[in-house]
């Protein structure tokens, strides 16, 4: 595995969306490795485990909002309790969110909300673009100081 490989934590129960997300990263020449969780319970379990085992901490967390047994917000809440994940950028990926839900997930530590659009080109542009921005922010941040982690939230 190359050192440029981006580790992505992906909580997504729809295999079709997993493939689309992978395709959108591929089209931007991002080298990645995805750890896919398909229920809220699995996702939460993994989040709590980081740091206490050998499992490497991800570089990016993408969370579907609607998951079997819960939603992305539940995972964000668990992630907030694990200090090893405090500097990992997190985004909620969803087809539709109400304004108050967007506010809620932002407050729970999401850097942004990525909307899954209908249509292939739109999906590639939206998901690929947002992931690229998030990763750029991560690089900038590791080069500077950890305290600037919230630049994307505002």
């Amino acid at each position, binding site marked *: 595995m190359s050192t440029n490989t981006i580790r992505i934590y992906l909580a997504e129960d729809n295999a079709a969306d997993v*493939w689309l997300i992978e395709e959108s990263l591929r089209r931007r020449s991002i080298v990645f490795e995805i750890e896919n969780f398909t229920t809220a319970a699995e996702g939460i379990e993994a989040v709590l485990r980081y740091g206490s085992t050998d499992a490497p901490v991800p570089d990016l967390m993408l969370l579907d909002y609607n998951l079997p*047994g819960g939603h992305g917000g539940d995972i964000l809440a668990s992630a907030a309790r694990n200090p090893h994940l405090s500097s990992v950028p997190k985004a909620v990926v969803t087809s*539709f969110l109400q304004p108050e839900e967007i506010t809620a997930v932002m407050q729970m530590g999401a850097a942004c909300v990525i909307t899954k659009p209908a*249509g292939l080109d739109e999906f590639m542009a939206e998901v690929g673009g947002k992931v690229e921005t998030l990763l750029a922010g991560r690089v900038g941040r590791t080069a500077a100081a950890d305290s600037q982690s919230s630049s994307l939230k505002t």
Partner: protein
Amino acid sequence: MRSAATAHHPDDSALARHRPVKLLLVDDDAANLLALEAILEPLHEELMLAQSGADALRLCLEHKFAAILLDVRMPDMDGFETAELIRSRKKSQLTPILFLTAYRSDEQLFRGYDLGAVDFLFKPIVPEVLQSKVSVFVGLSRAEQLLQSQAEELTRAEQRFRAVLEAAPDAMVITTESGVIELANSRTDVLFGYPREALIGRNVQSLIPKWEYVAAEPENGAGQHLAEVRLTGIRRDGSVFPAQITRSPFHCSGKWLVTTAIRDATDQVEAEHRIQRINAELEKRVEERTAALTYSNEALRQFAWAASHDLQEPIRTVLSYSQWLATSGPETPAENRQRMLAIIQHHAGRLHQLLNALRQYVQVSEWGAAESTQEKLVMVDCNAVLQQVVANLAGLIEESGAVIEWDPLPVVFGIEVLFVQLFQNLITNGIKYRSAKPPALRISAEKPADRWIFSVQDNGIGIDPKYSDYVFGVFRRLQRTGGTGMGLAICRAAAERLGGRIWIEESKPGMGSLFRFSISPRCE
């Protein structure tokens, strides 16, 4: 005998105000009678003349005289005999008699006074003396008449007052300012249970402890009503009742008296309480209705959101993948194109599945029923329902080797399709989410209180208690694979439509689940 009624002068207005009194003149000598008549004529009273004792007695039977002038010496029956007979009659017992005599004899005087004479006049008559003496008796008679008519008037007024008092619908007492009862009507006896005589002299405060009268502005006089108040009345047997009372003071013989009307307000109080109860009930119903509407609005909102969100997913996937497939060039491996096609088919199928589940949910949920009409309930044999459900699920049961048992179930009133949905979804879940063991389900029903409660016990993978509410929401799944996430939402809608609810009685991961649902007591 002749009457001298013509002596009356109706044109003399000063005297016409008085009714003339009658005077009887008795003398056997017509000339003497004429003379007496002439002397008394100026008095303008009614003069009646008699020439014998017998005539005089006859007139005394028919008339009441203010005075009788009686000649002592008459043939047949003299004045004294006549007087004795006049006196012996009750009607004329007290009529003043003036004897006319020519002789001043002491014997005559004594006899005359013995017989009740009030005076003697000696002949020859001096007109002025006669006039003035008769005038005195006329005045006395008139005063007596006046007194009598006043007494009659008083009696009539008293009778009228009594009649009004007795006819009053309320108990009424007249008391002193301090409350001592001077008068009470019969309604008072009835209301308080005391005989009338026991009420007079008693203080009204022994009947109505909080009765009081404070003379606020006594100069205002009678007719001033005090505000109506509601106090407590105590009957003779100690029982109490709400007493509506009005008090009106009046001034009488230099002191203040108070008329108190007392009404038993039990019915009124009950009516007021009834109105209060009805109002409270109405308010409660409005609150319940509002709560129900709020609940149903919130449910509708959640449903609309979930529906739009969850239906959006397969559509979006179908759209994106069909575009991807359409734009993929020859460099795309055939294997990938096959997979894209499979994804499109899978999501199109899933959309179909979701829409079917939605249709069932809408049919089952209360939004499908007209709000205002009473739901038509029919007899539902739950045993027959289970047989039908088992037949519907024959394929799944056979493939999984599931064992389904049930106790004898009740026949209830309800809507059959709702029971089918409840049992079918719960049994399907029990089989679909099975553990390593072959599925085994047991269905039973009991009626611990006023309503039936059904139990469906499975031996499946169980549900973490933290999801025990979550699972009943629309499009809620605990696992990635499998159903639409609508099964338990449909069950909840069905149970609520049947006037009950559904819950997970007991469930642990790996230990199976016990689902229970109740139905309305109306579904007897």
